[in-house]
């Protein structure tokens, strides 16, 4: 089940609080890891931030093309957004403390996102 995959990823990267699979065409979070601390409103804001920061096919707010990925860093927290190569409306959103190993996380998260996006 998708939630099991997200839980496994979150367990491997304990700095992550929230890992979510979202559809930017509807701007909806479809599934999150079990232990996320974000309420519904927070998840909605996270999805909206993904669409704004990375852009969609219809509109980009920073740049001229939809971004492949984005990282937003503020005091003590980072948020990572990754777009599926196979389906650009499918994204993974992650909320983490700032000590996350970003390269290691991306190395696991991108393949998982592709798997979830293709239904594999």
């Amino acid at each position, binding site marked *: 089940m998708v939630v099991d995959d997200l839980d496994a990823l979150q367990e491997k990267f304990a700095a992550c609080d929230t890992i979510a699979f979202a559809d930017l065409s509807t701007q909806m979070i479809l599934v999150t890891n079990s232990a996320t601390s974000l309420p519904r409103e927070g998840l909605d804001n996270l999805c909206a931030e993904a669409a704004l920061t990375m852009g969609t096919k219809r509109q980009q707010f920073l740049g001229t093309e939809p971004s492949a990925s984005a990282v937003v860093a503020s005091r003590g927290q980072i948020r990572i957004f990754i777009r599926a190569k196979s389906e650009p409306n499918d994204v993974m959103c992650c909320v983490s403390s700032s000590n996350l*190993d970003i390269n290691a996380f991306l190395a696991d998260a991108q393949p998982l996102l592709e798997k979830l996006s293709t239904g594999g």
Partner: protein
Amino acid sequence: MSDTSIIANKLAALLADNEVYVGGSRIISQGGSPTPLAAVLNEVDATVLERTLVFSIDDVNVSMIVAGRRLRGLVEVSGNVPEAANVIGKVLSRDEPETLQAAGDLMLLLCASANRVTVRSLPVQPLGTSSEAGISAGGLAKLWHIDLDAKPVALIERFLTANSNDMTAYVYVSNGDVAKTVGDVGMLEALWSTQVAEFRKRHRAVQPKQEGARLFCLNEPLGEGTTVAVAIDGNDVGLFSYKPSQMPKIVAAWTATLG
């Protein structure tokens, strides 16, 4: 006493509630603001009773004996710092200019690129005789050419300058005006003039609780192989491009700057 008002102001500043502590030590400089050595000397200037001040300058601890707003001497420097050998255990005096210079060189070396400086106040340790009063903080500032009242460099400007080696180009905007550019900034300036203001407005709407300084790093926003980052702190904005492989390092540098 001619300086009672100065002491009263310093005591009031110490009672201010806008202080941050980590592990029992008070942060006095973060990300280069205020200037680390100026922050150290200002702490000496604020210390009236005889104390041992332990400054943690990144991963080096320096213990100083301070009394009456004067630095009497250094009693300990942690780790392997060869430059400390000529300074430890000696009372600072204008009669010993070589020791004074060595102490200044040591502190300048430790503080040069310090990301964080904290201070902890401990009971005094013995050093020299009671008649050896040391040097005032103001006197040391003059001897070591430190401006105690230097205006801190803005966070965005500091970040861009400190990490410029990892950037291929950058634009620094202060209060709406382009203050500095490095490299080929045509596209970055175009983004600044056409997109950043609207992006900021929309971002405030989707993340209203996310105030404070923020960094956005985008991968391929202008097509394959491109990067754009936007750093925001109030009315200061930095736009820069960077090598994609450097993104984690840049993000780590940003979070370290914020503390």
